[in-house]
């Protein structure tokens, strides 16, 4: 009898937390379909009286949200592709080559992770300004080219690949790059998938760096555009909710489609070396 009560208490508690977690998101979606001013009624309505798409239309037609969406997509995709290539090569080298100074170099990189990115932002901005990269996609992409966390994740995974696989390929006369391309990369598919998701979502959601490097409105990413929009349209609650939906939905869909991969990355990354 006691078991049954504790079952119910536990699951009701879990459900209450789930509702609390979902409420802000559901309210955001619902309010984005309300007529102007409707969401500020008292008491605040939960469901739109007559759902309208007008805010989404306004975002697309007047407020260039399509443009920002494209900027975000381009920057996040390029960072993901390039950094995956660069990090996987470095992770492979750390995992499978015994060269002098390897362990020390790896330790130095790991300790560098404690340096907050904000420290680099001022000189990096000045540097990229001199190179003419302010307001360019290149400027937004550059800090994400290589990531120490990504190298770490790949290294952990590649270490679990038996050396005999590499030896066999080497016997067949495969070059080092051939081994990387046709043995390591295919075997690394799951971890590459994980890292790709992390990188894409991280870059998509990044705010401070694009805010600094993109001054020209035409180059804004979605989060920067949304923060900027807030300044002019703070009274247009429903419009701002629609803008938030547009910013959030792509990554939520990505996450729900590939959450298995995403979750593994956190579990692997979280395990103590």
């Amino acid at each position, binding site marked *: 009898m006691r078991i049954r009560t504790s079952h119910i208490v536990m699951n009701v508690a879990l459900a209450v937390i789930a509702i609390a977690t979902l409420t802000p998101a559901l309210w955001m979606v619902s309010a984005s379909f309300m007529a102007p001013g409707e969401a500020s009624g008292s008491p605040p309505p939960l469901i739109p009286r007559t759902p309208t798409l007008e805010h989404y239309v306004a975002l697309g037609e007047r407020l260039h949200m399509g443009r920002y969406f494209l900027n975000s997509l381009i920057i996040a995709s390029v960072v993901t592709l390039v950094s995956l290539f660069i990090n996987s090569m470095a992770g492979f*080298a750390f995992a499978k080559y015994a060269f002098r100074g390897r362990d020390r170099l790896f330790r130095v990189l790991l300790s560098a992770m404690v340096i907050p990115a904000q420290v680099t932002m001022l000189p990096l901005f000045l*540097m990229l300004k001199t190179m003419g990269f302010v307001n360019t996609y290149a400027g937004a992409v550059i800090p994400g080219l290589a990531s120490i966390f990504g190298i770490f994740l790949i290294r952990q995974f590649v270490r679990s690949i038996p050396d005999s696989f590499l030896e066999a390929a080497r016997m067949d006369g495969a070059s080092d790059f051939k081994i990387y391309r046709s043995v390591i990369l295919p075997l690394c598919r799951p971890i590459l998938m994980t890292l790709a998701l992390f990188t894409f979502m991280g870059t998509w959601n990044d705010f401070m760096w694009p805010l600094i490097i993109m001054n020209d409105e035409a180059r804004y990413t979605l989060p920067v555009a949304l923060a900027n929009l807030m300044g002019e349209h703070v009274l247009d609650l429903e419009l701002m909710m629609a803008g938030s939906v547009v910013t959030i939905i792509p990554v939520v869909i990505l996450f729900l489609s590939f959450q298995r991969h995403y979750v593994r990355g956190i579990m692997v990354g979280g395990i103590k070396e």
Partner: protein
Amino acid sequence: MRPAPGHRRSQTAAAWLFLAPALTAIGIFFAIPVLGALVLSFTDFDIYALADLGMVRFVGMENYLRILDTPLFWTALKNTFYFVLVGGPLSVAVSLGTALMLNSKLSRFKTLFRTIYFLPVVTSLVAVAVVWRYLYHPADGLLNHLLSWFGIGMIDWLGDPTYAMPAIILMAVWKNFGYNMLIFIAGLQNIPDDLYEAAHLDGAGWWRQFVDITLPMLAPTTVFVVMITVIGYFQLFAEPYVMTQGGPLYATTSVVLLMYEQGFRWWNMGHAAAIAFILFAIILIFTLAQIALQRRTGQ
């Protein structure tokens, strides 16, 4: 079989070739800027220097001394510590609590709940801050409306200096707890079941099992979680930038927000670089303390 010396040398060359792109990128776009920031922090680099580099002068420790003499810096530091020391433990506690609940034999629909709890983590912080800004609206916001059912009067969440930081903390915990929850779940799953069975046979209740088995076995995970949480929370920026602009009465001005405004709004880059280094020093001290603690508690 020992590899031939020639083989060994070509292996080393291959390794460095694989490392070259990553090390070049990290060197140019991370290591050099870190050193650059250190140099910058000892100069008077400002908006005039931006136009003409000849205007830059070395000023020694002047930036640091001036910052330590600025009341607003101390306010920002106090606010940041408030966020880290209240928000951090709260966030870790909620993560641990939900992880324990999801790991319990009593719970059902574990995957569904886990997914729901995790959803806020993947969302854009800016979008979330926009949404919560409206949820916190004193007259029309959903939160005050819900609270009114319990007889709690109207709170001006973001407009009252007393409530602004708690409001930001509440939102941050909501957004972040799912991440650490997953790490805790992984840690819980690594605890062997027979430990609990043995304790159960000895007649230990769930509280004794939690204190004697779960907490000690989870210690390494907890240290890791606290470390990444503290490092992340010290970098508070987007929440006040979007929700309060550091107000009201500077109650939510964080160190990074101050650095951003000094550096990229007023172009006092030498001054801002010094702020960034002070933040780095604080994070470093916290991290080293964590590691020392880990050495002492761990094996």
